[in-house]
């Protein structure tokens, strides 16, 4: 068949297909009805056929390219994935995320150890040798931490007024989630970045805690951190675990190529990060609006902190499990 004949015979279908594709591409245009969608799927299949024919018969590259372009654009629309976002999100939070954390618990335990053990060691070391706090931060930073948790303050944490809570909420969101993103991403560097951030954050926390205990600021400091710490520290550990997973799969790809192994690890790791983001938003909320309140007695804050820790642990260990009927 000559190219001209071929064009004449099927031109109409191509024009119709292009029209439908254009309508699907641009959300501002009229919505495509379900009957037309069925037509689009049929037309797309035929387009692939015409494209293959045109190539095989060595028609002019103008025609082949034009059909090829339509095939690409049609492919983009046909294979566009849409899902009810809210439902998928709720299912992820209630079942999939805790299950995922349990499935990847090896990484989570290692990351937890990297976050807590060096920090705890430095905490006790600082109790024993108070000057050790200066290994982690400058004297100015130490003074500023002392100012934040001085029991003389009406409010703990950073100096605050009522509306400051909002400012701090914004700060915690951008700072903490940013830290978790970096902790995760740098895991790609053979896991080294994640290890560094986990250990470093643990050490700073240990040094500050030890120093404030030395000063006798126990209550102001621990009542402040106990509440949101449950969500925040756990989330940072999981972000580190996701980064370690990337690094480990780069170093030990097993039966896959390194690239394939990384891709597979990336798919799982990014899901861990969804959960981390949610946990850190909750943590920022608690930190900005509850941890800083100095109205509540210390005992109550410790109790609430214990409950929050229990909630996080129960969520991660029990969430998404199917219990058998007795």
């Amino acid at each position, binding site marked *: 068949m*000559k*190219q*001209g*004949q071929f064009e004449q015979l099927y031109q109409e279908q191509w024009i119709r297909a292009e029209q439908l594709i254009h309508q699907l*591409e641009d959300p501002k245009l009229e919505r495509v009805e379900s009957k037309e969608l069925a037509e689009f799927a049929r037309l*797309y299949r035929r*387009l*692939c*056929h015409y*494209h*293959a024919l045109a*190539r095989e018969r*060595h*028609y*002019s*590259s*103008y*025609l082949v*390219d*034009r059909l*090829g*372009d339509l*095939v*690409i*654009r049609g*492919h*983009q629309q046909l*294979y566009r*994935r849409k899902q009810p976002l809210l439902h998928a999100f709720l299912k992820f939070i209630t079942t999939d995320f805790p299950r995922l954390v349990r499935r990847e618990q090896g990484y989570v335990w290692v990351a937890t150890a990297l976050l807590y053990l060096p920090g705890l060691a430095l905490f006790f070391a600082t109790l024993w040798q108070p000057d050790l706090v200066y290994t982690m931060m400058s004297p100015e930073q130490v003074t500023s931490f002392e100012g934040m948790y001085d029991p003389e303050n009406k409010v703990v944490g950073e100096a605050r*007024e009522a*509306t*400051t809570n*909002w*400012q*701090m*909420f*914004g*700060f915690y*969101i*951008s700072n903490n*989630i*940013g830290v978790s*993103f*970096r902790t*995760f*991403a*740098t895991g*790609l*560097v053979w896991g080294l970045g994640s290890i560094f951030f986990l250990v470093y954050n643990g050490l700073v926390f240990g040094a500050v805690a030890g120093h404030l205990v030395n000063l006798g600021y126990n209550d102001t400091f621990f009542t402040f951190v106990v509440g949101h710490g449950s969500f925040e520290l756990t989330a940072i550990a999981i972000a580190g675990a996701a980064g370690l997973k*990337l690094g480990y799969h780069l170093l030990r790809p097993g039966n896959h190529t390194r*690239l394939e192994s*990384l*891709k597979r*690890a*990336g*798919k799982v*790791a*990014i*899901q861990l*990060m969804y959960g981390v983001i949610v946990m850190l938003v909750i943590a920022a909320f608690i930190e900005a609006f509850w941890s800083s309140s100095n109205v509540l007695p210390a005992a109550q804050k410790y109790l609430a902190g214990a409950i929050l820790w229990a909630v996080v642990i129960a969520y991660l260990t029990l969430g998404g499990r199917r219990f058998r009927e007795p």
Partner: protein
Amino acid sequence: MICDIHLSLETPEGAVLPLAPAGIGVRIMAFMIDFLIKTVVTMIIYVVLAFLGRMGIGLALILAFLLEWFYSVYFEVWHQGRTPGKKNFRIRVVNDDGSPVTFGPSLLRNLLRVVDFLPLAYVAGCIASISNRQFKRLGDLVAGTLVVYDAEPMTQPDFDIKGRMPVPADFTTDEQRALLAFAERSKRLSPERQSELAAILQPLLGTKEPVIAIKQMANSMVGR
């Protein structure tokens, strides 16, 4: 468009998708535009919201955070793989299989910018993307994504010559395609260059006007 690194992907329908991966230069320029937009918008956010006091600063911090990390994700997922910078240079992000980029891979490739940025100014990303045939930076490699050129809008080629001439029967299909491609490209060549190229075939065609002859053969090939 660079043509010699075309990538062919096969769809479930058995059709072959021709994709042209975008090179490092055009991606850097697209990045510059996005970076400029982000910076200007962030500055505007801070200036405007500073009037709202501390609550405004809190809001500005959150917005700036979203802009820093989720600007690209938003445009890639909800605007057909194109951030404003990419749109400007007619490139877009797709998954490895040519399908539109989805949320997970988009977030992953954008979080991993942190590593591509190392040790400074995207050096790692640049080295990675000139080390593989598809110009993938580290984030693209792990997330399984790819930046490709949009197809250029096509216009019906016109060979501006009337009449037909039969193609010599001993021309192979590849040779026939070369003739056709010449006729299609002739709009972008100067008349002198056209005669220069066509003159190569003079001995084979044996006519005085090889340019016209080739175009007439093209006419008969497309059946016009």
